[in-house]
């Protein structure tokens, strides 16, 4: 037992020496990025640009690969002067359109000499919401150019962001098909951009029919057909060709079933 005691003391001494050593190196704690809190009613362009700068340096993690000033070691193009360059990058795209596309569809155009490694900024892990993406666009426009600052649109995006609850740990596997369909409707499917449901009471979502009680007037087969071939039977009062026929490839068969189950449950 005496030997065991000595052994334990020796191990304790070595392990805590290492722990002590680690306390002597520069300490850093990495906290989750702070959510930007702005009042939509008093929003100014300067606030938007500042919010964009903060997002770019924290939650967006853009500086992991990009730099502000040109740096030969950076994995992505430098931001300095991008506001002036952006309008000339791709014919047919304005400066804000180009930057927005570069952020959300980064592989659509890759600057020569750089690898196509950037993940979409509006998808995890950065997972920026629409307001944050727009604020970063305005900040980047301010570097050598002028931010557009569409304040009305930005205010609405800010209100929409405030309505979204913090994303909890999803438990999709244990959800019912209708609940999973609701998550897809509000998330991947992007259906909430055009349709109102009890879970998406967004007054701006009036491009397509209100689906709040769609389950009581349409059966599952009709709903499925309308998602896969939206122009086959367009609801009266709505123009044809607005809803894109992309959902057969966008959603997996399981996800499609879940969305149909969700919409069928709305009665």
């Amino acid at each position, binding site marked *: 037992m005496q030997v065991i005691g000595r052994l334990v003391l020796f*191990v304790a001494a070595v392990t805590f020496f290492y722990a002590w050593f680690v306390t002597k190196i520069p300490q850093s704690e990495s906290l*989750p990025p702070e959510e930007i809190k702005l009042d939509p009613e008093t929003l100014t362009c300067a606030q938007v640009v500042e919010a964009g700068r903060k997002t770019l340096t924290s939650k967006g993690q853009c500086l992991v690969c990009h730099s502000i000033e040109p740096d030969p070691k950076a994995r992505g193009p430098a931001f300095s002067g991008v506001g002036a360059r952006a309008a000339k990058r791709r014919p047919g795209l304005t400066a804000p359109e180009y930057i927005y596309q570069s952020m959300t569809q980064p592989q659509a155009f890759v600057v020569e000499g750089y690898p196509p490694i950037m993940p979409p900024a509006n998808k995890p892990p950065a997972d920026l919401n629409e307001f944050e993406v727009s604020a970063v666009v305005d900040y980047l426009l301010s570097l050598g150019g002028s931010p557009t600052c569409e304040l009305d649109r930005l205010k609405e995006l800010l209100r929409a962001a405030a309505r979204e609850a913090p*994303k909890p*740990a999803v438990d999709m596997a244990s959800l019912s098909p209708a609940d999973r369909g609701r998550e897809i409707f509000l998330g991947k499917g992007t259906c909430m951009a055009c349709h109102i449901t009890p879970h998406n009471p967004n007054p701006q979502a009036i491009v397509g029919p209100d689906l709040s009680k769609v389950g009581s007037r349409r059966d599952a087969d009709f709903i499925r057909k309308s998602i896969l071939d939206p122009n086959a039977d367009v609801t009266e009062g709505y123009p044809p060709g607005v809803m894109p026929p992309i959902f057969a490839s966008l959603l997996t068969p399981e*996800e499609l079933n879940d969305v149909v189950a969700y919409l069928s449950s709305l009665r």
Partner: protein
Amino acid sequence: MRYPGSGLLRALDRTEAHAPHGVGAGVFKGIFKTLAILTVSMLAVYLLNQTLPDATYREFGRGGARIVIWLVAQLHLMLGAFMLGAPIFAVIVEVIGWRTKEAKYDLLAWDFTKLVAVAGAITSLTGGAMLIVFAVFYPKLFSYMRGIFMPTWYLYVGLLFAEVILVEVYFLMWDRMARRKGAHILMGVLLNLVGTSIVFLTNAWAAFMMTPQGVSDAGVRESLWKVIHTYSWMPLNLHRLVANVAFGGAVASAYAAFRFLSAKTDKERAYFDWMGYIGNFIMISALIPLPFMGYYLGREIYAYSEQMGVSMMGGAFSWLWIVQAALIGALFTGLNYYLWLSMGKIEGAQRYRKAIPPLLVVLILCYAVWLTPHSLVASLEEARAIGGTHHPVLGVLGVMSAKNTAVNLMILTTYLSFLFYRRANKECTASWKSVGNGVLWSLVAGAAVYVIYLGVKGYFVPAIVRIGYSVYQVGAVACVLIFGTLLDVLLYRGAKVVGPIRWGRMPARSQYTLLFLAVSFIWLMGLMGYIRSGVRQFWHVYGVVKDTSSGAYLPAHGVSGMIVSSAVLIFFLFICLVFYLGQKIEKKVEISL
């Protein structure tokens, strides 16, 4: 002996002869303990989840739940690593004993397996504790992971019982099957196949959390195979498999040190001195290829997400890589010191003593370069204090070119120490001695010069070319390790023995060195595990399930160091219990070392 059991168990019991207790009883006890722990844990999870209010997270102080899960998971991982790694080399040593007909190897393999058999229950206990804390503190995440990997849990439980049964049978049938060694070894191989399956299966869960694939944007599983076969799965499998062997060797050498220090007779001291040497040799042999597995894992992480790769190597963790360098340097230094001390027990080793000071100088210089930081996340004050993000003079040594050169020279230095140790009591009698030695020394010197040449050239070429140089440097050193050893074995075949190896005539500090090596390696494993897991940052499942708990942050390095230290210390407290129980199971075998 009466116990409720199947016909198979009773049949096994009748075959038992010299085992510490009946084979059937051993198997039954193993199954019973595992089943009891599993049942109690699941019951506890059920009752706690029923009693406590429904929540996404259940807190245990601020961020305390995360620390508890971290500690328990780390402990279980360490014990599991020993349980799954030690049988790999136990079987290899048994095969060596079988082919060479030397009883010492068979006894050594038996001793390793004995520790595995004793550690089984403690490993199951920590596994049960892990199940409880995970399911109770993070119920939603637990539920999500359960759903994603649903059929694999049943497979895991099945493999767990198979492992328990095979460990018991493999250990307790040792003497009974002495005349059917082939069949016994086959059983050991089967045990390792089951163990490896457990490693691969559990790695799939960890790899999915890190580099998830096979789920939709909403996190719904699309394919079971895809969620298993993610980017980091295979590199993690290889990395952990080899690391488990090194881990098993580290614990075995620590056990040998403990037994050496508490030995009453010279015979005991001699045997455990030899056991410590072999355990340490296994640890180092598995440690050397580990960085390559690490590179493979790192490459796959970069391939999955450049952002994650950059965060791992250059972000918040950059200083921890310096700590890693300090630990690896300590391992090499400790290993060389152990070999030099070991030469003290060999008559004839005096011839090589003059080589030790220059080796020590090379080691110290390389260690210093290996430790030199280059560009780190520094505060403005720190950057001002050193005149930039890296030191104007020392920063030149902190780059990859210098570090790769340093670590390769450290490996070569250690190889030379090992070579002198091997040759210590022998005199070469081969007719081609001069030519052979000339080739060998040219090989070592050539590799050293080549490594340094590429290191210097690395400063003048673009990064993409420089990265490629590390492969050539490692290749040159690997050539020396393989061909040099082969040449040395041929040269010293039938060599004249000039003096005996006096096994057991070692100072106590040599055994503390063994212990130091074991603790350092285990601490390193805890640290690297933290970095691997920490790169997920604020995600439970990277990019799929966000961590919204109060523990969703990376603690200050000092805190993480303290947690790793606590896990290592608690692990050693458990392992001391294993050692204590292990020394009570002995068998008398006459061996000559």
